[in-house]
């Protein structure tokens, strides 16, 4: 009898003089695997049912027993014909039959939910600003403590983070910048050729990369590479209570986890930014040699003549600031993780998006500022 669960209704009149309702006869296996086929029809029975007869049931599990119990409860009927296993199961699940089931917390109606969500958003934003200021404050305090007690400074952790942020990203940053140099030189040459000013490709490549692109693209790459790693690592450590464990041992997570990471980003960004600019210039010289007929070494020699030294200072001045932003965004978001694993992903995304956004906003600010002070 493996052909699914069935049921039939019989009028009870033949058994007594008065109609007391119908006898509901369940037949076949009543299991979690078969119940899907009959549940809807069983629910739609209306009219009085006086007995639920299980004598035709070949196999039963708790789901079948639950359905029988809730049918009996709904119609005020009595269950008959249950074998030993069925009555044992019904005894176990019977008390919980017939209740309202909410598997999700209650959701307020839309009219209430919209202002509620907006309000929550506002409070969250305010809390975020407060949290960030508090975080920066705590960071300052730890820097202060470390300056007063230099022996507590974790040099090894810093070196390790510098390796991860700086040395390990050399290949990808280098390749990226090399290609950017090629694109800038090649596209610049196409436009400048219209004025017969192809030779200014060198100015364009050199100045643009040293001043803007080298540092900016590196900051974006580091935000994606290291900022996300900071947030995910610290977030996971928060979830597994490693951060709490540190606190109980008397290690300040600020000093042990966050200061080395932020300092590493702060220190490595200028170096990486300069390296990126150099690689971009090499890329430009490479493409100029191939397509513009400017020899490789001539290109490099001209760079020295046409690029003012303050372009380098502009780039190098911005780099540590961008490093700070990437580091702070990553570590702050990581420390905000709580409750569940979904938060790790959410906070990591936030760290990267915020870091890149802030880097670009600040870059625009720096561009105007340095031009105004005469470093055009």
């Amino acid at each position: 009898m493996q052909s699914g669960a069935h049921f039939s209704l019989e009028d009870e009149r033949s058994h007594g003089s008065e109609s007391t309702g119908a006898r509901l006869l369940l037949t076949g296996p009543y299991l979690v695997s078969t119940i899907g086929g009959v549940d809807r029809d069983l629910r739609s029975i209306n009219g009085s049912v006086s007995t639920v007869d299980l004598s035709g049931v070949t196999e039963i599990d708790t789901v079948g027993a639950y359905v029988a119990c809730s049918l009996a409860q709904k119609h005020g009927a009595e269950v008959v014909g249950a074998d030993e296993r069925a009555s044992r199961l019904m005894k176990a699940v019977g008390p919980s039959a017939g209740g309202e089931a909410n598997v999700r917390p209650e959701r307020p109606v839309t009219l209430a939910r919209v202002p509620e969500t907006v309000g929550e958003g506002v409070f969250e934003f305010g809390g975020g600003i407060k949290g960030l200021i508090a975080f920066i404050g705590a960071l300052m305090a730890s820097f202060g403590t470390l300056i007063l007690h230099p022996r507590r400074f974790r040099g090894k952790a810093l070196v390790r983070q510098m390796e991860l942020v700086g040395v390990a990203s050399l290949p990808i940053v280098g390749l990226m910048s090399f290609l950017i140099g090629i694109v800038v030189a090649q596209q610049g040459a196409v436009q400048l050729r219209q004025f017969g000013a192809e030779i200014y490709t060198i100015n364009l490549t050199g100045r643009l990369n040293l001043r803007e692109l080298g540092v900016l693209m590196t900051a974006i790459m580091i935000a994606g590479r290291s900022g996300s790693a900071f947030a995910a690592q610290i977030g996971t450590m928060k979830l597994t209570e490693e951060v709490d464990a540190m606190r109980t041992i008397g290690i300040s997570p600020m000093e042990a986890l966050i200061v080395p990471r932020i300092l590493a980003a702060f220190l490595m960004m200028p170096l990486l930014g300069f390296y990126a600019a150099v690689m971009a210039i090499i890329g430009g010289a490479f493409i100029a040699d191939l397509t513009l007929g400017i020899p490789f070494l001539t290109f490099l020699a001209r760079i020295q003549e046409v690029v003012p030294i303050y372009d380098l200072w502009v780039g190098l001045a911005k780099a540590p600031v961008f490093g700070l932003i990437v580091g702070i965004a990553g570590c702050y978001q990581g420390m905000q993780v709580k409750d569940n694993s979904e938060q790790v992903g959410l906070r990591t995304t936030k760290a990267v998006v915020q870091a890149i956004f802030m880097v670009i906003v600040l870059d625009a600010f720096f561009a105007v500022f340095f031009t105004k002070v005469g470093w055009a």
Partner: protein
Amino acid sequence: MDSDFTSADNELQHDVQPGSPHARFRGEHPIVVRGLTNRFGKQCIHEDLELKVNRGEILGIVGGSGTGKSVLMRSIIGLQNPTAGEIEVLGRSMTDAEPDEEVGVRSRWGVLFQGGALFSTLTVGENVEVPLKQFYPDIETDLRHEIARYKVILSGLPEEAVAKYPNELSGGMRKRAGLARALALDPELLFLDEPTAGLDPVGAAAFDRLTRELQETLGLTVFLITHDLDTLYEICDRVAVLADRKVIAVGTIDELLALDHPWIQEYFNGPRGRAAQASQEREQARIARAAGPEADTPAMDNPAQGGA
């Protein structure tokens, strides 16, 4: 009013596919492990391990830390591909199957992991619904919610816990929620990995009782990894001892105590083992006292055997 609904289900007979509804396993040994070898690099965890679990029993698995109890469970449920050996679960070979291949047994077992392993972004109720949705998508939403609700209550949680998230629950409640999910499909086989670890003694005893009750009511076969001697004495029908990369003995505790293996002797006759034994005898005496006046010997005057 002589309606007959029987014909209404004719289209809904897609359940007739072979193997579904699953006939309950009628064989003698739902789990058979033959010649299991697990090696990680140079480290050998299991070598030629043999184990048969009887249908309808609670089998306790004990062994020192690092003897591969969890690895054994992971091998049986197909999370760990053994280096060599054969594993049969409910009459089907797990070792011949590809990882994650549907071998028709995943809907017939329930697994409770050590930390509960609840999906943290879902409520307890939704956690219970995950296997239901996965295997029986034709169950209507209403009924699925109700099933989730009664499973949660069956696992000894209050009704309100259905709509709570795992991080709002205590460790013990999380274990129970994990048990509710393991029971979602009315399994025939239940795997429990240290279910009472980290619970307070009262909570642990309650969990033991619950396991026993569910095992009796639902007719389960339970594979239970534990370090808890009280659990072993209270609810296990047989105990398998893992040591020296093998199952060195399987039997009731009395049978094991008759053996002369140093680790077994130390395990069951150590201070904790004796305490657990004594407490079980006290408990039995208490039950006997409650049952009849002739069993009225106070437990204090009747010290536990081997408890001295």
